[in-house]
């Protein structure tokens, strides 16, 4: 070991990170100390080592002192390891003979005692140098990329990402759980702040998806399993039986008309307010324009009997109804994945005081949206659900469960604007005589054109109350709300015909299960976690999987579409390469030591290990191995080795500081 270390010529470079490091670590003392360490031939410091000047300093020193190993004492390797690898590579040293010592996150940022922080930094640098002396030069290998993309979720985010990728020339598989793509946006009537008709701007995009030669659409389907890694994923998609042959179905609707359960099942699309049959199409602009038979309700499927013969099958002239359809699993090969699974609305029943469960006249924004929509259950008429009468007074209550430490701590980001939009639309539909009240906590109209819209709505005889009602009392023919208005400092009693609650946006109920399936991480609020909130907002911690839209956190359509295009572009950077470089910092097997026990095969979470049947020796699939280290810890005979994290290297680090 000593023989090897004496061969090494190490350079240590200490970064001040402006004052981030320098204020809590004595960088002069650290640099002087580093220069005295065994094997170190030069130690230098600079204000910003990651800058061009810093890079030149490192490259110059490599040349001048004929360095063969570099230690950079700076920030976390997550930030700049890549930067410094490029620098040392340019300077003529193998990029894997670089060791990063983190003296920012692990010293200056977390310690207040400058003296002790400096001492700790010295220890870390010392052990870094000990490891650098033993670092081996490594070469990257490459793997071929499958130039196909998978997009999960067919809402506006999934649609936008699919179209962008398909227009870039990549094959796209779009998987949607519901019978039609369109998502939440297809349920909306108008969109703020421009009042564009939602379906008028969405339907053309849905049609484009349906007709795009590069897009293969899987509706009524779910991702069942996923294997592989960046560049080469194998995805199993479970296609639920539709009991309708979509090649034959013309979308004529004869089956829905004939269905014995016609208008007897609550329509999910109309938020339970409209009715559908067991044979149904969720909405008139559905893509694909095909019918589906709901296995949960269909008499023939649930009871084996529907009159003499299934009415839909008799009615279908195309003979498209097929009750023998079975669930089907399709294998897809893709190089990158965009996840756009959307959001749920908080069920307002969790705030019992607002009486959502007590009266049909207390509804949510999405329910009001369906009432306003001309394709909705009332054909666009605003009617109270209790008596089918037009309300004379409508009251909105914002922040239901949002910004609430007992429910959802976050702001839903769309509640204020959606309520203001509804005020505008109700004024348009119900006329000037109807009383419209808005109880808000703060109006957050932060987007482009939003404040203008808010101002316009204030001019529409809207009664704005700055205060949260404590409860909604069902008085039978009306609802009573007491609200203290902090702008007038008065407590008001509002008697109103209809209450619209604006609930918080929450992660999909199955977001946790889905995250486990894809190895994604959830943030504290339950939405999918981005790799970096500012610099990698569409990336996840799994290479090759990107997130877009409300599955990452609440956002409006504008932001969702931007993010979807961003995620598509991130996916395209992978798909556009024929080959990807594979990081060599992964596991290898010492064939002479391996006994073929197979423990590593069992323990590997990425299925990167196989036992060679002939040689009885474990092998590593370089493309799948992420370098997590599970097999190294598990191997009973020390045959599993993590490149440049070998026992010898790590023990040398420890030996040197104790």
């Amino acid at each position: 070991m000593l023989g090897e270390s004496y061969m090494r010529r190490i350079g240590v470079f200490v970064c001040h990170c402006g004052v981030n490091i320098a204020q809590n670590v004595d960088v002069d003392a650290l640099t002087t100390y580093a220069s005295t360490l065994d094997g170190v031939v030069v130690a230098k410091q600079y204000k910003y080592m990651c800058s061009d000047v810093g890079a030149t300093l490192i490259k110059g020193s490599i040349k001048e002192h004929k360095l063969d190993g570099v230690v950079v004492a700076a920030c976390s390797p997550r930030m700049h390891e890549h930067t410094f690898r490029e620098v040392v590579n340019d300077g003529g040293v193998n990029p894997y003979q670089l060791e990063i010592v983190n003296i920012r996150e692990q010293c200056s940022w977390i310690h207040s005692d400058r003296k002790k922080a400096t001492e700790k930094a010295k220890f870390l640098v010392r052990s870094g140098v000990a490891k650098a002396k033993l670092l081996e030069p490594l070469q990257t290998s490459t793997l071929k990329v499958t130039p196909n993309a998978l997009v999960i979720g067919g809402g506006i985010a999934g649609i936008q990402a699919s179209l962008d990728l398909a227009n870039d020339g990549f094959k796209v598989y779009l998987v949607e759980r519901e019978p039609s793509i369109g998502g939440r946006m297809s349920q909306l009537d108008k969109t703020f702040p421009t009042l564009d008709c939602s379906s008028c701007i969405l339907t053309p995009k849905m049609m484009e998806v349906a007709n795009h030669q590069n897009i293969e659409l899987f509706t009524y389907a779910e991702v069942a399993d996923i294997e592989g890694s960046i560049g080469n994923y194998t995805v199993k998609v479970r296609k639920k039986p539709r009991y309708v042959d979509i090649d034959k179905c013309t979308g004529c609707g004869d089956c829905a008309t004939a269905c014995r359960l016609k208008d007897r099942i609550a329509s999910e699309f109309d938020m339970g307010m409209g009715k559908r049959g067991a044979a149904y199409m969720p909405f008139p602009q559905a893509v694909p324009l095909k019918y589906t038979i709901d296995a949960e309700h269909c008499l023939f499927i649930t009871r084996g009997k529907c009159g003499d013969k299934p009415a839909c099958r008799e009615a279908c002239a195309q003979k498209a109804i097929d009750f023998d359809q079975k669930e089907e699993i399709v294998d897809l090969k893709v190089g990158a994945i965009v996840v756009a699974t959307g959001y749920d609305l908080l069920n307002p029943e969790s705030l019992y005081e607002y009486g959502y469960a007590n009266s049909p006249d207390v509804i949510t924004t999405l329910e009001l949206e369906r009432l306003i929509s001309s394709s909705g259950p009332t054909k666009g008429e605003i009617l109270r659900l209790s008596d089918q009468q037009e309300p004379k007074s409508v009251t909105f209550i914002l922040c239901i469960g949002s910004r609430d430490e007992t429910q959802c701590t976050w702001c839903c980001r769309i509640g204020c604007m959606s309520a203001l939009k509804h005020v505008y639309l109700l004024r348009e539909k119900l006329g000037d005589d109807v009383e419209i009240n808005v109880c808000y906590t703060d109006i957050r109209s932060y987007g482009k054109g939003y404040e203008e819209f808010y101002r316009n709505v204030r001019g529409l005889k809207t009664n704005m109350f700055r205060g949260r009602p404590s409860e909604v009392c069902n008085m039978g023919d009306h609802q009573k709300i007491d609200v203290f208005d902090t702008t007038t400092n008065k407590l008001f009693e509002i008697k109103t015909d209809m209450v619209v609650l604006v609930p918080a946006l929450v992660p999909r109920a199955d977001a946790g299960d889905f995250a486990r399936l894809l190895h994604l991480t959830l943030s504290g609020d339950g939405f999918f976690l981005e790799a970096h909130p500012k610099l990698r907002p569409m990336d996840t911690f799994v290479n090759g999987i990107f997130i877009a839209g409300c599955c990452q956190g609440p956002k409006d359509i504008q932001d969702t579409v931007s993010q979807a295009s961003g995620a598509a572009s991130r996916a395209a950077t992978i798909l556009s390469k024929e080959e990807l470089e594979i990081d060599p910092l992964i596991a290898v097997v010492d064939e002479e030591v391996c006994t073929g026990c197979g423990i590593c095969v069992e323990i590997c979470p990425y299925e990167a290990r196989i036992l060679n049947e002939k040689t009885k020796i474990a092998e590593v699939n370089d493309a799948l191995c992420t370098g997590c280290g599970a097999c190294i810890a598990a191997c009973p005979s020390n045959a599993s080795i993590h490149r440049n994290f070998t026992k010898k290297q790590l023990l040398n680090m420890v030996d040197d500081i104790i």
Partner: protein
Amino acid sequence: MSIVDLTSMGESQAELRKEINDRLSRLQEDVSDYCYQCAKCTSGCEAHKLLELEPHKIVALLKRGLIDEMVNSDIIWTCMSCFKCRERCPQKIAPVEILFALKNMAVASGKQIPGKYSTILQSVLSMGLIQDIQEVTMRDTKTKKRGDLDLPALSKPSDPAKFQAGLMKIAVEKL
């Protein structure tokens, strides 16, 4: 530097504010600094409908440190301790606990307390109840005693002195 309320010429009492917040931190989950003045507490306040108590303002005044103004005010005695504000606050603040703290401060500084409070206090100290159990008028307008309904007689503290000492101990420990 200072911040002065020009109506009352009151200044922020930072130390007193800290003392109250420290006490409250043992009783409520979050300190009043998190209040964003949504006034949900006042919207539902039973006492406000009767007597102008505005719990959200109490929280706001505490945030500003204008404590004397509240301690000297009669409104702190109007809270009927229904705990609705604590139950429903979206920021887990409990205006009702702030009022308890202020009431205790008022008593400690020798302020006059409303007469009914002394009566209640006496009743609690002597028999452990805020008032003696009265006969109950039934729907048929007849009055009944506990005994008529086969209910046992209420137990009273057997050793009043020990009982009172115990009560005082709880009061001191809690605040």
